[in-house]
C-alpha cells in the first residue's frame, strides 16, 4: 500500500481544516476522549432535539491528521441524523475499520460511504487504528452519557 492511499487529499484537507472544530452552544451531551500514547485528545459536544435528532455536533481537541480528519468527517456526517441511526453508523464504521471490507448501513448514502471509506487506509497500519477510532468511541460515550472519559490506554 502506498502512503498516499492513507494520506488522501480529503484526509489532509479535513486534517488541516477540520469541520465543526468549536464548542456547541447549549449542548446537552458531551464526552472526552484521550489517546495518551499518541497525545491525541478530543471533546465531543452534542445537541439533540426533543426527537433525539442531532441538531448540532462539534468537537474540540488536537491530534494527528488521521484523528482530526476522522472527527471532522464524522461530525459532518452525523449532523441531522437520529440517535439510533448515529449508533448504527458508529458500529458500522468501527466494524469496517476492524474487519469488514465495506460499510453496510442503509442509513448511509453512497457519497457518505465514499467519504468514510477514505479512512479505511488505516487498516494497513494497526498502530494508527486508534487515531481513526478515538472520536467515534467518544461519540458513543457522549450519546450513552456514560460520563466516562474514553482512554485508549487503561491505567490508574
Amino acid at each position, binding site marked *: 500500500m502506498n502512503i498516499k492511499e*492513507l*494520506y488522501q487529499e480529503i484526509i*489532509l484537507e479535513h486534517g488541516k481544516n477540520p469541520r465543526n472544530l468549536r464548542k456547541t452552544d447549549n449542548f446537552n451531551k458531551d464526552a472526552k476522549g484521550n489517546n495518551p*500514547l*499518541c*497525545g491525541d*485528545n478530543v471533546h465531543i459536544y452534542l445537541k439533540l432535539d426533543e426527537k433525539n435528532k442531532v441538531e448540532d455536533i462539534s468537537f474540540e481537541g488536537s491530534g494527528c491528521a*488521521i484523528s482530526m480528519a476522522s472527527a471532522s468527517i464524522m461530525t459532518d456526517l452525523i449532523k441531522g441524523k437520529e440517535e439510533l441511526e448515529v449508533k448504527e453508523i458508529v458500529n458500522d464504521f468501527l466494524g469496517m475499520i476492524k474487519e469488514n471490507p465495506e460499510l453496510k448501513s442503509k442509513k448511509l448514502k453512497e457519497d457518505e460511504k465514499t467519504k468514510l471509506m477514505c479512512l479505511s487506509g488505516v487498516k494497513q497500519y494497526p498502530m494508527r487504528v486508534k487515531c481513526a477510532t478515538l472520536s467515534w468511541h467518544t461519540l458513543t460515550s457522549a450519546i450513552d452519557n456514560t460520563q466516562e472519559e474514553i482512554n485508549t490506554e487503561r491505567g490508574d
Partner: protein
Amino acid sequence: MNIENIRKEFPIFNNKVHNNDLVYLDSANSSQKPQSVIDRVNDFYGKEFSNVGRSVHYLAVAATNLYEQTRSSVQKYINANDKNEIVFTKGATEAINLVANTFGQKYLKEGDEILITELEHHSNYVPWHFLRKSKGIKIEFAECNSDGEVTIEAIEKKITQKTKLISITHLSNVTGAILPIKEITELAHSKGIVVLVDGCQGAPHLKLDMKDLNCDFYAISCHKMYGPTGLGVLYAKKKWLEELPPYQGGGGMIKEVTKDYISYGDLPNKYEAGTMATAQVIAFDQSIKFLEKVGIENIVHHEKELIEYGQEILIKNNSVKLIGNPKNRGAVLSFTIEGIHPHDISTILDEDGVAIRAGHHCCQILHDKLGIPASARASLGIYNTKDDLDQLNLSINNCKKIFNLK
C-alpha cells in the same frame, strides 16, 4: 574505525523495509544486535544449555561459569570495584524498582523526599510514585531549562533536609542532555543523600566508570547496548547490597530454609531469585566484547560527529524545530514540524524505510512542560552514518510535500 565494516556485523541491515534500505534511527528505544550476540543465544541453547547455579553436572557447571563470566565482563566494562556489585535484572525498569522497593522499605518514611528531574523517563518516576502512595513520601522535580538541560544548580535548588535520594537520568532520551553525574553525586554525598542514576541512555553512548562517578546505584538496559531483550543490570555499591533487604523471594536467593527461619544467599544471589534470563546474560558478554572491540572513545567520537551533522541539517530545514539545545548532547535528536503531528511524520518516514519514534517517549511530564503532546525522535547507534541523516532530511522534506508545507 570503519563504520561500513561495523554495519556488516548487523544482519538487520540486509533487510529491506518497504523495498528501501533500512535507516534505523530508533536506537534509544532499542538497538539492533550484532551477529555475534544473535549466534551466542542460539549456540547456548543448541549446544551448551543448562540451568545455572544449582546442579553439579558438566553442563550446569559450564553454564554457571559462562553466566558468571558476563558478570565479570560487566564489572570490568563499567569499572566497578567488585563483581558482586553487578546484579542481573529483567531490565533497567526492574533495577529501579528493586531499589525503590528495598531502599524504600528500609530507609524511607512519610514526608521523606525523593528528588528526580523533569527529564525522567516514566520508569524513573512511577516506582517512586508507588512509594508516594504506599508510604507517603514526596517526589520533587528538578527543573529542566529551555535548552532541555538539568543543571546542578537546578538540582541544588530542590534539595532539602528531607531529601533522601536523588534519582536522575545520565542522558535524556528526549533532549539528549548529558547530566553532570559526578558533580551531582559529590553534592548529594556531601549532604548525606544517596544517588541512583538511570543509565538506560548513558550506558550505550558514554564511558562508564563507577569508581569515578561514585554514584550508589546505576541502572542499565542491555537491549539498548546491542544486547538481548529481557535483561538489565543494577550496579549497586556493595554496602547497599549487603544492607538492603532482598527484593523477590524464591529459589536461588536463599541459604537455609526451615519452617520458621530463612536465611538469604550471599551476593549476588540474594537479588537473583528464580531462574534468570540465562541465555541473555551469556549472550550479553558478546555485546560487551563488541563494545570493547569498537572502543567507547570511537563510539563517543563517531556519535558526536553525527549529532553535530544532524543538528546542522535539521536546523537548516525550515519548519523543523529541534527540541532542546544542550551544550553536551548525546545521541538523540527530537523534533517537531509545525503543522504535522509526529505520528503522521513517523508513518510517512516509515514508507521510505526510515525508522524513528513518535510520541512522548515515556516522558509525559517533559512534554507537558514543553507544551507539546508529542514529538518525533531520531536516535543514533554506532551503525548510523551521515547518509542515514541525509535520508532522514530527504524523507522529512517528502513529508512536508505530502502535507503541502514549504
